[in-house]
């Protein structure tokens, strides 16, 4: 039985299925639709890619040998270590600040709410580079930083600002405070994304608000919070390069120190870029496993990374062929 295309009403297609269960069903093969346009688009894209690659590869002014030579040199590796350390510390403090600010934002206390709002407003609203330079130059207006007991003339701790605010301290302060503002919005979104019925169920079981947050709401919110936080972490890794401006010897600063002497600017920037790419790739893989861990209880069970890739690149084949 044949049906005209465009004439597919339900009754005929059921009839086809009903009749098809007999002898006619044997030897039938489903052929997927062909898309010639996709081939054309792919060829054009590959062509452009080839042009860009050859422009670099055939350029005789680029000293390719410099890349393996400096990839593991001391200034680069020291810079890489400093970049990773600054990234992890700033992001870690940023996450804690973010959780704190988000909980304040959602509290019943109007003063807490306003302070958290003000914090996010200020640090999200001013450029990070300005904040970094600001912290670094704090010594211009506060020459010493000291801890005193008010009203009594007792000084617990006092030091010159310039010895306390090193390039590292200024970078960490600026990046973490800035990150906390962004993280608080991410955490707040995660907390608000949890059904209020969960809180009510916990309250009905006699759980206090604090226990409810810790045991019921936050663990579920983490699932929502992780993907954008992974994004933030990767962003943070790249943003730490701003700290080179205030003379913190990070990866970019290391590369700059070398090319200021040998003038192989692009080569050294490629070395730095390669390291940034390697570390962001490792972070992405980590994020995948973290997401899978926190997906427990979700209807869709995650597989291994390899299976995901296999599936993504699996060619669509007709069933049974």
């Amino acid at each position, binding site marked *: 039985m044949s049906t005209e295309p465009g004439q597919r009403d339900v009754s005929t297609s059921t009839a086809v299925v009903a009749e098809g269960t007999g002898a006619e069903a044997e030897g039938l093969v489903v052929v997927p639709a062909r898309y010639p346009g996709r081939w054309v688009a792919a060829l054009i894209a590959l062509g452009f890619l080839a042009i860009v690659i050859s422009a670099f590869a055939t350029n005789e002014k680029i000293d390719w040998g410099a890349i393996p030579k400096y990839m593991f040199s001391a200034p680069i590796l020291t810079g890489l270590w400093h970049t990773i350390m600054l990234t992890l510390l700033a992001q870690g403090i940023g996450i804690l600040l973010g959780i704190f600010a988000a909980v304040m934002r959602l509290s019943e206390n109007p003063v807490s709410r306003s302070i958290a709002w003000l914090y996010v407003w200020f640090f999200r609203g001013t450029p990070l580079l300005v904040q970094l330079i600001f912290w670094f130059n704090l010594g211009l207006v506060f020459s010493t930083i000291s801890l005193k007991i008010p009203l009594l003339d007792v000084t617990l701790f006092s030091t010159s600002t310039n010895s306390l605010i090193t390039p590292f301290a200024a970078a960490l302060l600026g990046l973490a405070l800035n990150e906390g503002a962004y993280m608080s919005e991410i955490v707040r979104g995660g907390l608000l994304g949890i059904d209020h*019925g969960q809180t009510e169920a916990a309250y*009905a*079981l*006699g759980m*206090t*608000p*604090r226990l409810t947050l810790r045991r019921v709401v936050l663990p579920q919110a983490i699932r929502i919070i992780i993907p954008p936080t992974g994004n933030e972490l990767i962003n943070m890794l790249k943003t730490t390069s701003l700290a080179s401006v205030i003379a913190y010897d990070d990866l970019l600063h290391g590369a700059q120190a070398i090319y200021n002497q040998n003038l192989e600017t692009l080569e050294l920037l490629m070395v730095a870029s390669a390291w940034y790419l390697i570390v962001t790739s490792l972070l992405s893989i980590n994020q995948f496993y973290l997401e899978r861990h926190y997906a427990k209880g979700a209807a869709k069970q995650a597989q291994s990374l390899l299976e995901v890739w296999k599936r993504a690149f699996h060619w669509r084949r007709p069933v049974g062929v």
Partner: protein
Amino acid sequence: MSEPVVVARNVEKSFGPNRVLRGVSMTVAAGEVVCVIGPSGSGKSTFLRCINHLERIDAGYLSVGGEMVGYRRSGSRLYELRPHEVAKRRAKIGMVFQRFNLFPHMTVMQNLVEAPVKVLKESKRDATANAEALLDRVGLADKRDAYPAAISGGQQQRVAIARALAMRPELMLFDEPTSALDPELVREVLAVMKSLAADGMTMVVVTHEMGFAREAADRVCFMDEGCMIEEGAPDQLLGAPRHERTRTFLSRVL
């Protein structure tokens, strides 16, 4: 007769300009099963939520086991309690929700032991043993390590009942426990509730299941537009209602 478990006198509650409860009174004796029926928007769910202070009442008096859940009385003043004090009193009141509200990131067993361990400070071993007995009772002993998303709605609601029972409550509140279930799953949940009623648990059940009300309830209350219109024995109220509004409602649902 012993002291009533629930006493509500002229309870009022508004959401903005919307007066949801207009002076609701009701008493529930120990071991009694009371079903509250009424059209949607009649305030019956809100009233139930007021009983364990998930909603704050605007006026009137509401006590459970002789104590006001959200307030402390001193002379003629009522002092609102702080959240952790309210939590302590709520622990004696079990509640089952229309949408189950199991904790999705915990297994069935973890759902059952969470509050007994964290709130009642039971040992993990005692809580687990008790949870196993309760799961056995609701017929889900084999699902103890499943996550809520992996079991049916009827099974989830039975777990939710077991979770509430794990706190050894003096009173159980049911907020339309079968309304979110496919028809063929309703019966298994009602069966658990009937066995609970037969065991002498004090229960207040907001429901649309007239069959359950007739079979298991000691008393049925009909609410409409924020008022308790009439109450009586199931046969009387469902069979020969005195009030016009009750008759109209029943003619629509039966």
